[in-house]
């Protein structure tokens, strides 16, 4: 598969990365090069092969239902570009 400028723009939008037209144009061939290269995997017969789910055999451990975290608003907000009245503040969202 290969992508054109519009598709690159769409992906950039999904990824929330602003791109100028020039950047988009520059990325199209790079993108296609990489896609073409990874598409070698098409050669591999994977019929009946399960996708890998765990790198190393291991069990998902579950936590006990204990409140032992939170209550650290200062830490949570400490690095915020904009915090007001105990909230994070962002440009107004219209729903």
């Amino acid at each position, binding site marked *: 598969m290969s992508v054109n400028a519009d598709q690159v723009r769409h992906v950039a939008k999904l990824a929330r990365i602003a791109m100028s037209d020039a950047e988009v144009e520059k990325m199209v061939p790079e993108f296609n090069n990489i896609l073409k290269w990874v598409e070698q995997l098409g050669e591999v017969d994977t019929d009946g092969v399960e996708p890998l789910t765990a790198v190393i055999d291991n069990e998902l451990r579950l936590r006990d*239902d204990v409140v032992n975290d939170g209550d650290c608003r200062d830490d949570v907000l400490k690095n915020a570009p904009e915090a007001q009245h105990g909230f994070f503040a962002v440009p107004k969202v219209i729903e």
Partner: protein
Amino acid sequence: MSEYRIKGETGEWEVVIGLEVHAQVVSNAKLFSGAATAFGAEPNTQVSLVDAAMPGMLPVPNKECIRQAVRTGLALDAVINRWSRFDRKNYFYADLPQGYQISQLYHPLVGPGEVEILLDDKDENSVKQIGIERIHVEQDAGKLMHDQHPTMSYVDLNRSGVALMEIVSRPDMRSPAEAGAYLRKLRSILRYVGSCDGNMEEGSMRADVNVSVRKPGDEFGTRTETKNVNSVRFVMAVIEHEARRQIELIEEGGKVAQETRLYDPDKNATRSLRSKEDAHDYRYFPDPDLLPLELTEDFIADCKASLPELPDDKRKRYEGVGVTPYNASVLTAEVETARWFDALLEAGAEPKQGANWVVAELFGALNRRSETLATTGISPQEAAELLKLVADGTLSGTLGKQVFEIMLETGDAPSKIVEERGLKQTSDTGAIDAEIDKILAANADKVAEYKSGKVQLFGFFVGQVMKAMAGKANPGVVNERLRAKLD
């Protein structure tokens, strides 16, 4: 119940409804962090660094949330998947700190099950099965506030990471009433199980309402999804409104767009969320921070053993001991009511009578007084005592009602009320005879009229005696003694 049809220009339409219910799991801590879940805390105080998606933070699942979802699945007769997995649902929004919601798409924890609803409360044969497609476990998002600042929205992450069960029905409902019955029944079951408090005002249960219309017998039409509807009434309103909108649209030659909509209760209308629509590509993939979730048979057996008697079983049990089907369904609808009634039975009340009394007398009184079982001072043990006093003739029906009123007022036990106020019914013939004699002596003229044939005066004498004895005389004995003296 007759089939629900909407009349359009081109004939009758059938409505097809499916619900995705988000139910907040009852747990102390969040799904993937140790922060608290309590409602109503100061903003951002119940937020761990994990919930705020600080760099390098990792999720570790809360066993209780998994347990509650499995118990819920078992209560809905659903398949419990021994192997399930968490996936990331990727999208950007200010209430979603990670930039993805940890959810389950490909391998949910719970598979198909069903909920039985009654289409008509008074007809136990009017049952319908509503299919459950799946239940998956996922994180809630935070909250955005828009009206505190002219150009900014505020983000509170207290809810961020709270565990939700998303209970997805099959498109098996065909009317607003069925959807309402399904939601109420589901809520009832969740509350019995204790996996969700069912508090819709606090957002513990919200429904995404999928609606489509078709001519009866046709294929399914295109559906719309109205998000986050937070009361049974609103869900029913959404269905009605959305069905009519779609029918009008189709009949005017238009096409229903598969889209997400939002309900505005003030306008009682839904509107399209098209603005968000174009970027919807959630790029689900297995969360690499979490391994597959594998359940042991022991774990599932423990979940099963911990389930209480569920509403349908309870209803059947009540009916089996003589409670009318209507009363049984009223008594089992809410877990608090059922628990109260069970305690009443345990305290020795006769089931049929007890049920009648609870549904007619107690609920009537509570309604009148704007009280509930939770707020009333009457305990099931005291109620059982009252019923027993009436049953064994210690109290007359009238006295019983009087004692009941005092109980409602004071919260005192009936025995105490009877004792203190001397309200015990008397069958003491000596005392009754003495009163009768006094009344007859004082009304010699009426006695003469009676004897000359005006027999309807008998009631007058009864009333006089009862009044003189402050209602405490056993009416049967009064009747019998009066006849003996007059006839």
